[in-house]
């Protein structure tokens, strides 16, 4: 009988399996024991995403072994993944609410730069003109009270523009969005009826407007405007190249002093100068609708939402050092990076507050 043959076959099989198992365990153990370089995940705001994509390649080239993955998923996701610990750095245009700060202890909101938001539109033939719009008018458009481009209020604000008799298509963000947060804060600060009925937030209950569209992310907003004539959108300044390439028009917004301004380094800096000194130590402050003749009304701190307590000292050091580099005027906050996305560097006082918060990461 083949007893001897089957015995040696079984033995060989067991030997091979055992060797394979042993090798896998040894390799796995070796990998864990050896110094695995930290791998950071940054996720969140699509407004901040282009800047992270400029920072990360240069920083990781200078710091061999460190890997940072960036994602553009919306400020809402940035905040929730930073809270849950999935992402080490949550990028957000919106600071966390008081209730969220109380619910989750030990979260830091660290401003990294100052950005702004554009109101863009797709008016065939008129996209090279800068239409004048105000907070109350935008609130009425997104509230469904102004439905046509040649409405009396729009014509009164833009007497020298031949506005077409077409339905306005207001486009909003469907994902939890920091852009929604700052846009709705502009509407709330300038329009009491919007403030009491809809309010502001990363997600708000948009009034029902027939034909109104939803889009995901800033790139989605650009596409929605490009594909839909007579639409109006709110898009972060870091997408100005995309909106210009798509041929979209940009609006001049009415600020608190009643003047109509376009977003630029000067107008954003003017707004920063008027508001930044009110910044508290936890740096959760809205910069919307600032005083000043030359202030652009929709500007905001770009936040890194970070847990104070990181899972390991290596991780904490990696996060802290990267963010400390990001806020340095000769590091991430230099013109070589910020000019490409249209952002403005942090004033020295704010940078100091950010550095204090970052030092507490362990």
């Amino acid at each position, binding site marked *: 009988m083949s007893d001897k043959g089957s015995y040696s076959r079984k033995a060989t099989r067991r030997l091979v399996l055992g060797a394979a198992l042993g090798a896998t365990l040894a390799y796995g153990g070796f990998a864990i024991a050896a110094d695995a370089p930290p791998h950071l995940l940054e996720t969140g705001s699509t407004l901040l995403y282009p800047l992270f994509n400029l920072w990360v390649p240069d920083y990781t080239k200078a710091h061999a072994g460190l890997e940072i993955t960036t994602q553009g*998923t*919306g400020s*809402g*996701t940035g*905040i*929730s993944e930073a809270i849950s610990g999935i992402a080490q750095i949550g990028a957000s245009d919106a600071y966390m*609410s*008081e*209730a*969220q700060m*109380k*619910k989750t202890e030990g979260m830091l909101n660290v401003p990294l730069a100052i950005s702004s938001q554009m109101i863009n539109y797709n008016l065939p033939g008129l996209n090279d003109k800068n239409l004048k719009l105000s907070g109350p008018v935008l609130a009425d458009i997104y509230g469904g009270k102004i439905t046509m481009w040649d409405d009396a209020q729009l014509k009164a604000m833009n007497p020298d523009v031949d506005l077409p008799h077409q*339905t306005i*298509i207001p486009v909003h963000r*469907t*994902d*939890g969005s920091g852009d929604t947060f700052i846009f709705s804060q502009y509407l709330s600060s300038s329009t009491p009826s919007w403030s009491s009925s809809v*309010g*502001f*937030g*990363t*997600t*708000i*209950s*948009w*009034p*029902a*407007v*027939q*034909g*109104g*569209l*939803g889009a*995901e992310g800033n790139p989605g907003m650009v596409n929605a405007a490009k*594909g*839909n004539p007579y639409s109006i959108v709110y898009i972060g300044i870091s997408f100005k190249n995309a909106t210009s390439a798509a041929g979209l028009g940009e609006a001049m917004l009415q600020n608190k002093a009643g003047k109509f301004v376009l977003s630029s380094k000067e107008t954003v800096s003017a707004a920063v100068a008027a508001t930044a000194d009110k910044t508290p130590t936890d740096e959760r402050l809205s910069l919307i609708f600032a005083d000043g003749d030359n202030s652009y009304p929709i500007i905001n701190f770009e936040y890194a939402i970070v847990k104070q307590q990181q899972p390991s000292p290596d991780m904490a050091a990696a996060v802290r050092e990267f963010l400390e580099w990001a806020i340095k005027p000769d590091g991430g906050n230099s013109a070589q990076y910020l000019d490409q996305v249209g952002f403005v560097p942090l004033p020295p006082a704010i940078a100091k507050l950010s550095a204090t918060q970052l030092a507490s990461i362990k």
Partner: protein
Amino acid sequence: MRFKTGLAVAAGALPASLVLIILFLTIYAWPAILFNGFQFVTSNTWNLGNLYSDPVMVNGVQISPGAHYGILFLIVGTLLSTIIALLIAVPVGVGAAVFLAEAVPGRLRLALSFFVELLAAVPSVVFGLWGYVVVIPFLGHYLFPFMISVLGFLPFFGGPPGSGYGLLTSGVVLSLMIVPLIVATLRDALVSQPAEAREAVTALGATKFEVVWKVLLPSQSRVLIGASILALGRALGETMAVLMVSGNALNYLPGNIYTPISTMAAFIVSQLDSALQDPTDMAVKSLAEIALILSLISLIINFLARILLSFEKQGARRATFA
């Protein structure tokens, strides 16, 4: 003996997991079910409330001020898009199944059937992407305005053509996904009909069309209904493709068939991140309530379909010859 118990445990794990999923959803969503009550399915307003104000106590639960959860527009959107998908898929599916079963010789039938069934293998997100890039511009710029000029006098067919994202687009994309199901089931049923049935009716002088239309199809009506209900169940749960072409309407019902809509499955995906911002968790629990309602509807529909189709299998064995 140990093998038998092991097998029993493994086999029992499957129905157990189904029960556990429903149980988990119910337990997790229970506070939301209590808070929302029946107006959850009759109210047309989904409002997360003011997430940046402090939570308030309403009816004994903590919620964000102004929070109100109503999903009527989701139920309407889901039902309308599935009905439109079926209205397109059933005639096309029946036609394709009849063609494959009756008008095509053996080897060609195998090849063509293979292709139709491969359509079911395409991931739904691919359908969504194709819909987004190809279908929407075509529909929005050409087909919808044409339909309005020709059919605009009918209710729901007139009005602004919109941007191409909407109810009809979702229905079209969904129908492509459920057609293979109908074709495959019906074609198998038609092919399995005994040749004597066809020969008997042909001997009485029926044309090929009459054979199909008056004898074969009516005898397979239960299979067709069962397959359609199965397809309905598939279309109800379809998430990614609809998310990309439906336009994501919020808080309003469609005024015509070109208007944006939202379906329950797509809504859960698109709103999850926002709901996680709610410090009181009531928003996520309300999303879980939507998931529970969707699961129960889908389970009931699939159950009905399976029963109908299993009757037919038993019936076919009995009805050999009258």
